[in-house]
């Protein structure tokens, strides 16, 4: 019973954490754009949180630079279970143009497990929305 309630709550109100792992900012502004009036994810109960300890879903962008790697792992560990990671943008999927650069690891899944990928360079806000909704659908 309690589990059902928790699952319902989780589905209806996923709190997201926005994580930049060396992205070019385009994906990040699209994530923010998804929060503003045109797309307004808040109407779906999605709330942007500033700390990993409150978050259910990590929305991560960027190809993961060497410097930021340990911090990403730390943030992932700080997020309470069950947690989901959405990799937004071609960078987070595979490194995009930065693939092969000496300081980028080429994708988020090199470092932490990823649940959903949203393609695009940058991914459109509606695509990000779709990604999160699809992810919730699997719960």
């Amino acid at each position, binding site marked *: 019973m309690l589990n059902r309630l928790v699952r319902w709550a989780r589905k209806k109100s996923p709190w997201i954490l926005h994580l930049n792992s060396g992205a070019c900012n385009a994906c990040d*502004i699209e994530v923010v*754009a998804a929060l*503003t009036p045109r797309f307004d994810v808040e109407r779906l109960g999605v709330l942007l949180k500033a700390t990993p300890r409150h978050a259910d879903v990590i929305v991560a962008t960027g190809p993961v630079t060497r410097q930021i790697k340990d911090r990403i792992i730390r943030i992932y560990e700080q997020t309470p279970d069950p947690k989901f990671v959405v990799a937004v943008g071609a960078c987070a999927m595979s490194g995009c143009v930065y693939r092969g650069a000496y300081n980028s690891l080429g994708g988020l899944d090199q470092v932490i497990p990823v649940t959903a990928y949203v393609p695009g360079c940058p991914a459109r806000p509606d695509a990000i929305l779709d990604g999160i909704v699809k992810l919730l659908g699997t719960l």
Partner: protein
Amino acid sequence: MKFNIPIGPQHPALKEPISLRMTVEGEVIRDADLRLGYNHRGMEKLAEEKNWTQNIYLVERICGICSHSHATCYVQGVEKLMEIEPPKRGLYIRYLVSELERVHSHLLWLGVAGHEAGFDSFFMYTWRDREVVMDLLEMISGNRVHYAMNTLGGVRRDLDEIQIKKILDGLVVLRQRTEYYFKIGASEPTFVGRLAGVGYLSKEKAIALCACGPTARASGITADVRKDDPQAVYDEVPFDVCTADSCDVLGRTVVRIKELMESYKICEFLLRNLPAGDIAVKAPKKAKPNEVVSRYEAPRGENIHYIRSNGTERPERLKVRAPTLANYPATIEMLKNGFIADIPLIFAAIDPCICCAERTVELVNARSGEETVVRFGDLRKLAGERFAKSPVKRNAVWPF
């Protein structure tokens, strides 16, 4: 009693990830120190492995907000190296996109400034209006953020009559909205009071520390690459360089709103006088050994690319100096003698990355060595409380 506050680098408030150490006394910042190099991706090295055309798309991805600025700065330079002259129509379209990008960037910034000042409805307003220009850019280029409009020797997409009309219509809406922001500034004493006097940077200091872009112009310096060293079309276009002399965050806001109006003017001029003809010429594969410095006025300030070629189809060296980097020393100056609660606002005022939502400030108590982590959200709350208690600066007026 002094405290040390490290800020970042985990999710710094600045565009290029960075770590700041501050020494504070009570609530007043006495000194600040910068550490760079976080989030370094190795792009300049990567550029040496790609050919001239591939690099356009690489430099475009240096920054997502001024992507067209980097790409334009780069192609300007390479075109000089290759000694090719893009056709007029191509140039007009290229700089039209530049100006539209400036509009989107400044609207974005206004929203962020509102957000950091605790004026969230302003944030929602500007970001809603920003969608208008995003739609225009998407219509022109096919993508919302990375437009990929530039190519060596011109642009990749042409404009037709219907598009021109749509852009002109869009500009009318945007102009109305911007005028409305003017009015908000004039009729919101709390907003003006929050911004006035924060992050002071005197004119002499701004010159000495080589500030650029709106940060410098808000300190009364008329420096604008578009006027000082006009590339391509800018010497044909009538526009003014916008300055303010209040030297604070209020001035920076005013400069950006004024620049929005100028950008609309420039866009309209470019559209009305769009010459007929080709949009691009064919570029050679290789560039003769030479070197070039290319300057460009990005929304945040002067962007410089240094490119050296060695006769092959790849650059030998590509060096990028982004405007935010030029503004770091000035930021330190602004932070000094400011309040902890003003950090977000001062950061935001040089137009850094707004999207790093997870920003933390660590407060280290120098005496006990105890550390507390303060989130930016809490900082903002702190700022709100501080200003709720302090009387609104009644002498602060919207300078129009």
